[in-house]
């Protein structure tokens, strides 16, 4: 029996009504292998004391990630904290575009640029803006596509942000709950494969 606090069970990000009523990935945790359970459950409780991002960067990173993922209500998947764990330990993808700095430095630079844009347009940092103002700043960057944003190619900045944000968010059991995805599958496997076939622990989408 793996101990998981009740506050982590049966949740979806922002407590939205689920399209998969009653489905909770964590109900099956006793059928996961130990190696997998270890890495997945650690995502539920990353340290709130970040070690890579500075305080100013943290505020901007949290606002940016929550905005990219429409996380406007509690409980939130701690996306910025999960990214911080990666960057603090240097767990990057390794490669980077020749006209971009390595990932950690790219995060620092782009968060500062984001605050610059927010300050220039609205007189305050990105994290202090309203939802609509944040959307306007972010949309302007996406619209630049292959053009430069500050010194960097906007599409590659967009790729960096969305890659890290989606990797963190869609590795979290709460995000799997809202997708109907059962997560780890070893040694249990699947028995009912084929169109419209479900396992006893899968729930039909409503």
């Amino acid at each position: 029996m793996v101990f998981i606090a009740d506050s982590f069970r049966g949740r979806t990000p922002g407590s939205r009504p689920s399209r998969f009523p009653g489905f909770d990935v964590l109900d099956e945790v006793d059928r996961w292998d130990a190696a997998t359970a270890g890495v997945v459950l650690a995502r539920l409780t990353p340290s709130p004391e970040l070690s890579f991002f500075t305080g100013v960067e943290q505020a901007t990173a949290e606002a940016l990630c929550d905005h990219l993922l429409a996380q406007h209500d509690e409980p939130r998947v701690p996306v910025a904290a999960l990214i911080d764990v990666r960057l603090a330990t240097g767990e990057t993808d390794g490669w980077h575009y020749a006209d971009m700095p390595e990932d950690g430095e790219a995060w620092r630079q782009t968060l500062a640029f984001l605050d610059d844009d927010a300050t220039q347009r609205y007189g305050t940092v990105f994290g202090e803006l309203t939802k609509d103002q944040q959307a306007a700043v972010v949309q302007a960057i996406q619209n630049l596509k292959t053009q430069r944003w500050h010194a960097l190619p906007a599409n590659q900045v967009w790729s960096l942000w969305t890659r890290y944000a989606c990797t963190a968010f869609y590795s979290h059991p709460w995000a799997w709950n809202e997708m109907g995805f059962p997560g780890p599958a070893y040694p249990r496997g699947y028995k009912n494969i084929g169109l419209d076939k479900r396992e006893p622990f899968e729930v039909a989408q409503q």
Partner: protein
Amino acid sequence: MKVGAAMKVGASLSLYGDVRTRNDSAWLLPKAPGFPHQLRDDMRRYDETDEVDIVIVGCGAGGATLAQRLARAGWSVVAVDAGPFWDPETDWVSDERGSHSLYWTDPRLISGADPVPMGSNNSGRGVGGSMVHYAGYTPRFHPSDFATLSNDGVGADWPISYHDLRPYYEHIEHELPVAGQPWPWGDPHSYPFQAQPVSGNGDVFINGCERLGIPVRVGPVAIANGRFGNRPHCIYRGFCLQGCKVNAKASPLITHVPDALAHGAEIRAHSHVSSVLIDEHTGLATGVTYFKDGVERRQKARMVALAAYSIETPRLLLLSTSKRFKNGLCNDEGQVGHYVMVQGAPQTAGRFESEVRMYKGPPPEVSSEEFYETDPAAEYKRGFSIQNVSPLPITFAEHVIAQGHWGEALRDYMRDYVHWSSLGSLCELLPSYENGVTLASEADKHGLPVANFSYSMCDNDKQLIKAAQSKMEQILRAAGATETMTIQRFAHLVGGCRMATSAKDGVVDDHLRTFAVPNLYVTDGSVLLTQGSANPALTIMSLAARLADHLVGVSRG
């Protein structure tokens, strides 16, 4: 579950006997999951001053196959790998995000008009190489792939033909082993195991093709449909791309390394090779230097084989400078690092009324090579294949992001994940001298300059990718998709030290021996001249098996 009407049982299980005369790996594995620890504990260990018969750099498709063959023939073998010696049971997880350590994540730069992202998609690390996390598709090349210049006026002609490789394709298909329906394309052939049952994702592909009259087959997949030696049956877990914890999907870690160990090979993990040593007087390779635990060491050897793949093999040659080879080893003619190829690999997803739940069942299921050859009516030369792919949540989010969605729209698409099915194409992009690897000014943790991989597509490439995308959309629509979305991407890596008939056109000869150094060989995907629309793993292993036969033959006179 439904499979095409042509499904038949391939060759019978009596072929076990034949396999065991070449390779006993599946019977050396434990009956429970994991790696045979006793075999690893008892592994022969050479001293670095021992002059072994061969040191092999890299322990993936090319390196592990060569190590197994030569060890079995009685050679003293040390195979060195930069990454870990994996134990599937304790080191791998049934989780997308948690599988990061399977990829080569040392720094690399990517550039050119169409930079190719690396990492999970096309790089490996550790014993087993990138086959640890490949999907498991193991098609052969077509005979036409070996003469595209003569036949189509594009690409290059190989110094060997399909028939030189054919016996080795058959051997490796039995050793992995490969499951699939009898194959009608290229050189028609059957597979040792009958095809796996297919999931909802495979059903969609077969339905769409049947409605359009496009031939399609289940396989070829390197997962036995049944037990194989001590390897258990697949459990349809869907995490093939995260390393198979079950030991059902083939990778050299379980298909060749156990037999290599049993025949006295040493696998030296966590050892990053930094240069090939050359005797300035004889011009022969004398071994390698490598970093282990931060200390630079060396291993003496009578022969050296490089199997570090299309980025690291050229990088290692370029790093191995000496008085004789000022511009890098084997690089007098400026060929090292050039003609690196990737396949165009657009993936198209379709939304269906039914729940597809494409995460269930192995991602490799069904393929069609109907569009593999040059279509005389088309504007472009060469072709593409189509295969099932089944992106897990993080990868599927990349598909949605690629449409420009974010925020609420991203979340909405993702909540609908169970209704989506997905196809991937492999498009034969043409080799170009300009595409390849140079050394960057940035250095890795050992202080060695890292690779800069530059890649740009030509017009033929772009036309092919467009045609492939349109065909996938047609198939998904025919199967009932109400919406489709496509992500543009690349897959696989080959070339960079290509085979040739003379030193001015390549780095190695038709037996993979470097033109410049008589006892230095390259035995990985970097020797390929063209890539077809086939996943390269089977061809790389078959080339290594052919090289081993040649070396053993020469040594026995």
